[in-house]
């Protein structure tokens, strides 16, 4: 996949529009919490080739973010590999045969610190294919100026050939906190 980005200097009328489109947005309002943010009825008719989730996430208590596809919580259906740094040391491990993809999980987890969120960009490649397991690539980061900070690369695998029509985002043992903002985008090939 090559996502071409055209720099300014070209008038908007000449830009190729529609290759990167907003699908839906989920937020947690001020004063609220949410157990899950769900994106449903994602087009699988060839409208898009890839998906991207762009997140500013907060939790009521710091812990791992879980991402599931098509409401699948089968206990062995997801694999995650992780590489992270906490400002002092580098670590790597894997979570093989789990019930969800793990995101921002090696350190403190999703930020529960007042005013501070975890930034996440997740790519889901060829999400509508019915011939392949689904792979994800994620970069996440929580900066607290402490050893609980975390910059993390994650690769994920959902072991299903079903097209993805639903994505659920939650926190493993707590809830999504106020000011969480998750946006889903579709990318056309």
């Amino acid at each position, binding site marked *: 996949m090559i996502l071409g*980005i*055209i*720099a*300014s*200097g*070209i008038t*908007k009328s000449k*830009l190729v*529009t*529609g290759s*990167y*489109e*907003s*699908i*839906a*947005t989920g937020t947690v309002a*001020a004063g609220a919490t949410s157990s899950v943010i769900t994106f449903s009825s994602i087009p699988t008719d060839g409208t898009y080739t890839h998906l991207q989730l*762009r*997140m*500013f996430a*907060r939790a009521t208590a710091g812990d791992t973010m879980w991402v599931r596809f098509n409401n699948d919580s089968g206990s062995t259906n997801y694999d995650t590999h992780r*590489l*992270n*740094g*906490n*400002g*002092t*040391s*580098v670590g790597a491990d894997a979570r093989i045969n789990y019930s969800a993809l793990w995101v921002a999980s090696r350190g403190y987890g999703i930020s529960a610190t007042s*005013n*501070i*969120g*975890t*930034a*996440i*960009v997740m790519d889901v490649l060829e999400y509508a294919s019915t011939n392949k397991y689904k792979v994800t690539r994620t*970069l*996440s*980061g*929580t*900066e*607290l*100026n402490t050893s609980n*900070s*975390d*910059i*993390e*690369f994650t690769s994920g695998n959902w072991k299903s050939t079903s097209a993805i029509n639903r994505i659920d985002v939650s926190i493993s043992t707590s809830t999504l906190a106020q*000011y969480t*903002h998750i*946006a889903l*985008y579709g990318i056309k090939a």
Partner: protein
Amino acid sequence: MAVTYEPIATTTLSSGASSIEFTSISGSYTDIILTIEGVAAADSGQYYITLNSDTTANNYSTTLLQGDGTSATSSRYNSGGNSYQSLIGWPRTSRFNSIAHFQNYSNNTTYKSFLWRYSAAGTYGYAVAGVNLWRNTNAITTIKITCTATTFSSGTMATLYGIKAA
């Protein structure tokens, strides 16, 4: 269909300069993305971001993960004692580039966290990913990229993009 991902501004240097700045950034997007690609006059120092001209001590910190071709390390920097505000790369006489993602940059409620990646090949090359924090709840309206010890060379290009969610 409204444009979702669009360029806001580009600067291409016609001569060497120690900094590049974007001002009057619109608050109408959901996220903004900064890219910089180019060559520097020397393999010296770092380049960092200053937001909204804020040089207040301890307002910035960075945690990064890097590989230099031999080993992988992780470091953390706080702007309190350093001359640079918010690190996103190292100037190189070979080509270098950085991309930084500012999620929810225009809200007036939370501090601003942003992800960045950097790469440069050659003798002093790195592959780096980092997360930075600006401890300020103001919307981001200016971004300045500054070299600490050298200059960006002619031809270095920085571009700001806006992403608008539904």
